């Protein structure tokens, strides 16, 4: 019998000579810069990220088939990708629109009639509850007028921004100056004073906008100033839920991990500092939120494939315990979307598809 020649691929022959001939596909780094990577390199990034995320958040890594599906999404040369027909999700567009179309009313109409947004959001460029308090009647009038002109639900959105309540911007002592001096009791007292002002403002604005006809409130970038920022918001959410049982309340987070600036704050016996998305969701839904938006900040020096694998790993535990819709934040610089003023469509669409198909999320 004649021996058959061994069949090998070009890649195997090159690998045996220490060369790699695997084709490279264009992909993105976390800052949006386009690079070329092989499928093996993308696979390695996904594996590394999900293992790291699992260790940090103390949750399971993505399953093998989920990693393979992510790889298929990211190792593609397509300039755009999308979810399957019928698998589309609700878009709650915090800070949506452009603010460059003339007026807020035109902006909302454009978002509804041209962009096809599912939940519209009225917001002011000074996107902070403390600032909005001073112009509330103007925002209320726009909301009332907008509600006459649009069909889709319109919520009102702003950020808690607790740090604005500390000196020199606000009345409370500045805990970020007290903490480095070791004055921990003084810093905590300052934080607690600021929290009182903040919750009052969040409630004042929420009541004003809901009385003007808003379909809901959006607390966007919650926890940006740490656990006290989160606590102030949860208190307002609870109040609004009790007073307006049918109102939508969205709590979108600032990051994957609640920083313990105060360190001792608890919500119904659960310490807020150090919470990952699953625990964040649990306190949000218990407080009365109807939509929870996890955020995972992007690492600019890592690929988008690495970033989405990391983000999905820490968010996935939410999906098992959620009683309310989960809308991962996919704006600039979060959950696989590059930090860039003009996030590239190839990267943005891949992040959206990955969230929907891996997490089975309820919206974005």
């Amino acid at each position: 019998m004649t021996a058959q020649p061994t069949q090998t691929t070009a890649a195997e022959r090159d690998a045996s000579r220490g060369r790699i001939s695997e084709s490279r596909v264009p992909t993105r780094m976390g800052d949006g810069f386009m690079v070329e990577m092989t499928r093996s390199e993308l696979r390695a990034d996904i594996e590394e990220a999900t293992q790291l995320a699992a260790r940090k958040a103390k949750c399971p890594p993505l399953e093998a088939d989920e990693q393979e599906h992510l790889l298929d999404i990211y190792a593609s040369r397509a300039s755009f990708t999308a979810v399957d027909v019928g698998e589309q999700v609700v878009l709650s567009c915090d800070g949506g629109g452009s603010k460059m179309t003339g007026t807020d009313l035109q902006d909302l109409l454009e978002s509804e009639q041209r962009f096809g947004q599912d939940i519209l959001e009225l917001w002011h460029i000074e996107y902070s509850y403390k600032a909005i308090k001073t112009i509330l009647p103007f925002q209320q009038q726009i909301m009332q007028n907008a509600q006459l002109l649009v069909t889709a639900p319109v919520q009102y959105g702003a950020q808690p921004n607790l740090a604005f309540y500390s000196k020199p911007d606000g009345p409370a002592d500045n805990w970020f100056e007290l903490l480095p001096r070791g004055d921990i009791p003084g810093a905590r007292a300052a934080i607690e004073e600021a929290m009182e002002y903040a919750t009052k403002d969040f409630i004042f604005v929420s009541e004003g906008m809901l009385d003007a006809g808003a379909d809901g409130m959006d607390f966007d970038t919650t926890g940006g100033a740490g656990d006290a920022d989160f606590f102030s918001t949860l208190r307002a959410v609870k109040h609004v839920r009790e007073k307006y049982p049918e109102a939508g309340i969205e709590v979108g987070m600032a990051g994957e991990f609640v920083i313990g600036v105060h360190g001792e704050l608890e919500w119904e016996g659960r310490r807020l500092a150090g919470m990952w998305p699953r625990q964040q969701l649990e306190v949000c839904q218990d407080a009365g939120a109807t939509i929870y938006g996890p955020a995972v900040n992007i690492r600019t020096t890592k690929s988008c494939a690495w970033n989405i694998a990391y983000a999905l790993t820490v968010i996935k535990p939410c999906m098992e315990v959620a009683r309310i819709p989960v809308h991962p934040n996919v704006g600039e610089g979060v959950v696989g979307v590059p930090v860039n003023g003009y996030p590239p469509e190839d990267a943005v669409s891949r992040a959206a598809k990955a969230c929907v198909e891996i997490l089975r999320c309820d919206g974005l």
Partner: protein
Amino acid sequence: MDVTHALAAGMGGIRTAGDLVARMQMTRGMRLAEAKRYVADKLGCTERDLSDSYAMEQIRGEKGLGRILDHSNLHPGEPNAMYAKFRIAELLGIKINSVERFKELAGI
């Protein structure tokens, strides 16, 4: 970026039934599958129809739920905006805040 997300994964707002499913998430805290089932039952269509602009253009027109308006699709005399929201509230069995506010201020 808004447009990218809308094309990649969004239901389509009032082009489809995205606003209706969104209202069930906002007012009742329903998760996506439950909200889609609820709205599809109320409309008498399939869940896939909910994000199909062809199907929903017909259904929204028949039920007076408001449609996209442009130069080739004008529907004077058909409910839109606040008019449509009265019908949406009734169809979905929910209270829409702006509709309640409108009734109060108009003395209805």
